[in-house]
């Protein structure tokens, strides 16, 4: 846990200035609180007794005035600065996590539950704020308070300082002492929440299938079950928090009792010091009141950090070359004796595949579903690496080229290509960010969707909805096709570009394919040929190899 939390802090290095300023404000506010009660106590004691023991007491009431202003002001600034610092740090963490996932899970979520992952980023990162707000800030302020009390009382009598400061110091130590125990409970809460979110997301994502199967009662029962599990986990965590809170309150009281006991034991000689100690302990009790709960906060943050790093630390599917080769000029693809299986003991997808895609060629790749046509695309795009054999791009071994540079050369329309919940224009510009509007329309026309978009009142600004939900299946497919056509990569892989299109649109698109992809290499992955594709070669995948075939 400690290692994870330290790693979180190292992610926040860039915001050290803000974070330290927040802690400084917190120390100032706590010391002002000590001054307030200390001065007031002295003033009253001096007033009612007029005793010589309270030398300097007369000044107390005068000093009180600026402190009255200073204390609320510092508290306000403390909260403002610490929160501003936290949000900045958390925003950094969010982006770091997204980048890491793009690097480590480029092929998508796969078995990881999308709902769970959302929970990871949003709530786990938010839970990290407790490292700083719930533990570091009150901890540092608490240390300042205890040190100040120890110094002030120590100057009068070290015995009194020990009586008051030791229980308070113990209260400060509670969080690190309680944290490991609470960590397990905190992890269970975070896991239960992720599980709950996942069982909510899954049936809602496939809502039509859920309703069609009449599976609502079962989905609801599952949500209820995860809800009960979450409540149990929360109860366990809260119980720890409550005991910690009780222990902290008792230690604060022990400090007060220590001061009083000192007074009783020392008699008249110790009166002034005892009164001062009592009021300082009262003030410190307020400052340290939140500390015991910091244990639970720290534990929950530790659990969140663990889950966050677990997802972020997956090995990337294809390691980047340590010394990348220079990008070759050409973009001819040559595959020799390729062996590949998705899992070690899984069925092989390719067994000695040979394939050539010369520059400007248009290859049609046929074969039944599940034969590995899409796997070939993954290998070319470096989303997976072959077990043996070679793939070269323009003569350079693909393994020696950086993935990003390869993807700049090879664009792909995958079967699961997605529209994002954004405007049509923004979705198209993913293919070519700097494209002019004319180019956008050209791509739309080529994909056979230009007319539809023109008829929309908001045109290119129309929002697509999640996964293109605002369009029919065929329309959404043509939009992602337009996006792929916009890309300027010299090699284009089109995986079932016409799936879900009606025959007329399909035929019209394939007829213009030559014009749309002039000068580029195209790998067309299809179940069957319509007859208008005019490929330079037709290959059929079977038994892990590619054989020449007739349309």
């Amino acid at each position, binding site marked *: 846990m400690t290692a994870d939390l330290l790693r979180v802090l190292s992610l926040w290095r860039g915001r050290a200035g803000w974070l330290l300023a927040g802690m400084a404000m917190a120390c100032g506010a706590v010391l002002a609180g000590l001054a307030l009660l200390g001065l007031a106590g002295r003033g*009253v*004691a001096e*007033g*009612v*007794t007029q005793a010589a023991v309270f030398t300097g007491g007369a000044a107390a*009431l005068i000093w009180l005035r600026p402190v009255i202003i200073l*204390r609320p002001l510092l508290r*306000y600034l403390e*909260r403002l600065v610490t929160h501003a610092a936290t949000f900045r740090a958390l925003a950094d963490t*969010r*982006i770091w996590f*997204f980048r890491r996932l793009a690097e480590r899970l480029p092929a*998508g*979520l796969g078995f*990881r539950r*999308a*709902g769970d992952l*959302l929970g990871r980023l*949003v709530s786990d990162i938010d839970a990290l704020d407790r490292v700083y707000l719930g533990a570091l800030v009150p901890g540092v302020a608490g240390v300042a308070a205890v040190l100040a009390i120890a110094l002030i009382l120590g100057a009068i009598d070290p015995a009194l300082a020990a009586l008051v400061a030791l229980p308070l110091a113990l209260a400060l130590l509670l969080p690190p002492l309680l944290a490991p125990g609470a960590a397990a409970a905190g992890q269970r809460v975070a896991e239960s929440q992720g599980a709950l*979110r*996942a069982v909510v*997301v899954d049936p*809602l*994502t*496939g809502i*039509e*299938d*859920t*309703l*069609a*199967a*009449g599976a*609502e009662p079962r989905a609801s029962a599952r*949500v209820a079950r995860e*809800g*009960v599990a979450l409540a149990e986990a929360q*109860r366990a965590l809260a*119980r720890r928090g*409550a005991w910690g809170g009780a222990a902290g*309150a008792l230690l604060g*009281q022990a400090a007060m009792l220590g001061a009083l006991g000192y007074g009783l034991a020392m008699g*008249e000689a110790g009166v002034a010091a005892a009164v001062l100690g009592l009021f300082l302990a009262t003030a410190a009790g*307020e400052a340290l009141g939140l500390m015991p709960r910091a244990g639970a906060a720290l534990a929950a943050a530790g659990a969140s950090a663990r889950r966050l790093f677990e997802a972020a630390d997956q090995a990337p599917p294809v390691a980047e070359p340590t010394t990348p080769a220079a990008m070759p000029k050409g973009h001819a693809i040559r595959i020799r004796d390729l062996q590949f299986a998705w899992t070690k003991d899984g069925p092989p997808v390719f067994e000695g595949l040979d394939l050539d895609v010369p520059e400007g060629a248009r290859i049609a790749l046929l074969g039944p*579903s599940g034969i590995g046509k899409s796997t070939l695309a993954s290998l070319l*795009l470096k989303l997976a690496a072959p077990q043996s054999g070679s793939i070269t791009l323009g003569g350079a071994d693909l393994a020696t080229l950086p993935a990003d540079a390869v993807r700049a050369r090879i*664009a792909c329309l995958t079967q699961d290509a997605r529209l994002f*919940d954004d405007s049509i224009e923004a979705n198209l510009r993913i293919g070519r960010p700097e494209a002019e509007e004319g180019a956008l329309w050209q791509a739309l026309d080529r994909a056979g969707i230009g007319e539809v978009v023109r008829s929309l*009142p908001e045109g290119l600004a129309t929002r697509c909805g*999640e996964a293109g939900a605002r369009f*029919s*299946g065929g329309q959404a497919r043509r939009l*992602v096709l337009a996006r792929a056509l916009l890309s300027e990569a010299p090699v284009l892989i089109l995986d*079932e570009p016409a799936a*879900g*299109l009606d*025959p*007329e*649109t399909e035929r019209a698109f394939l007829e213009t394919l030559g014009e749309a992809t002039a000068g580029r290499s195209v790998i067309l992955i299809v*179940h*069957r040929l319509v007859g208008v594709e005019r490929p330079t070669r037709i290959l059929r995948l079977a038994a892990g190899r590619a054989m020449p075939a007739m349309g």
Partner: protein
Amino acid sequence: MTRARQGGDAASALLQREARAARGRLGLPVGLGLAQILIGIAQAWLVAGLIAGLLGFGAAGWPALGAVAALALVSAGLGVAQERALLAAGEAAKARLRADVFHRLLAQAAEDSRSVGERAALVVDRIEALEGFLTRWLPAAALAIAGPILVAGAAFAVDATSGAILLAAALLVPVAMAVTGIGAAQASRRQFAALDLLSGRFLDRMRGLPTLVLFRRQEAEAEALGRAAEDLRQRTMRVLRVAFLSSASMEALAAGAIACLAIRHGAVLGQNHPDPAGAIFCLLLVPALFTPLRAFSQAYHERLAARGAAAELAPLLENEAPGGLKLEEVPDRVVVSFRDVRLTYDPSRPPALDGLTFRVLPGETLVLAGPSGAGKSSILRLLMGFRRPDAGRISLNGQDATLLAPAELRRLSSYVGQRAHLFRGTIRENIALARPEATEAEVEAAATAARVTDFAKTLPQGLETQVGEGGFGLSGGQAQRVAIARAFLRDTPLVLLDEPTAHLDPGTEADVLDSLRRLCTGRTALIASHSRAAQRALGRVLEIEGGRALGQRMAGE
């Protein structure tokens, strides 16, 4: 503006309803809190006596110190008991609300345009936000009224002026909080909207991560995500800048009360103070006075958060669940007829169905053909009760179909959508979903009929192979076949298929068409399909364009 106010009213009504429901369960924790406050007053009295004794006024000693210690132990115990009672009170309410919200989301989900992430946040995060209202704010509010009255009353008994000072400070706290809280309430709603947007956006982009990576846009999206987070930060800070003012005003009032008491007892009454113990007692009461108020102020944020959450939950909970008649029994044969049916999704776009009329008899298969966007899927969605027609009549065996509750309507049909969703679980579980009480043999028969077995037997774990959310691990065509197996297993009089062979290669398509023909035999079937092979193989073809029927032809024509 009026809509916003209505939303606010609905949110208040929801919170009030929940507060009333929780009242019975909150009596115990509030009572325990009051007991703690009384113990605090008693401790202050004993400590004041002790200090006065030290200063030479009175003779309190070690026994009093022991009493203070004993009271501290009791108070700590009460605190633990209170915490438990609060937690128990919140759990029941949360479970009930969560079930309610999820149920309604399922009922209206086919029409809900919000992202799945946003809707999931309603079930998970918003419900948790309501818990804070029930278990923190409500009891804190009760204690913040009763506590200061008790404390100020105790001070009155000793010194009327001190009592007045404390009472005034306590009364000013809610005033200061109300003044600063009004702006914060509005800001809080905005902040929730921003948080949701960020959640929805992240889930959307995570799902499409491969697309972003392949187009090398992950870096640009990371930056966009950063801007969204920055926006969220600014909104949140705007809320907090105001919200923190209320706690700062409380600190100022606490400091002011201490100063006033110190000056009254130290400087004004001074050396000939009539009641030195009382003076110290009054001063020690200040922390006791502000402890419940501080808890209230901290809980006030919970109330703001809960209000924001309630504003989003209320419209959903107010929505009447779509009612309708129940189906007495599933008939063996169904005649489907559409007469002049109209449906518009979006008023700014042409209608999806524009006066469509047709009829399908039992044992007949109708293939819906036409360009994408012609309205083929809409017909199936209407028959599934995902949507209600805007006009016209849909009847089943002569009865108006819209009178049936949507869930009842769906009992008649097996449906395979365009993008069949596989749930997390094994292939077998995904098929059995259609009829959980089916035997293993029946599931396997359905898997065979839909040609699932063909590919499943090449997998090491066969039908027990795990598939991820969204069917990860299987190709599009394989997922489609699993969905068709569901239809076989379901065994209903009405079969509705949306592009069942779109992702299949010609060989598999022929196989699946063969199974589909068997599936449709003796049932009423509507199949939306572009595929010429499907149109040839399955039956009568209805050409649709622009939401209207163009004409019919028989299979093979």
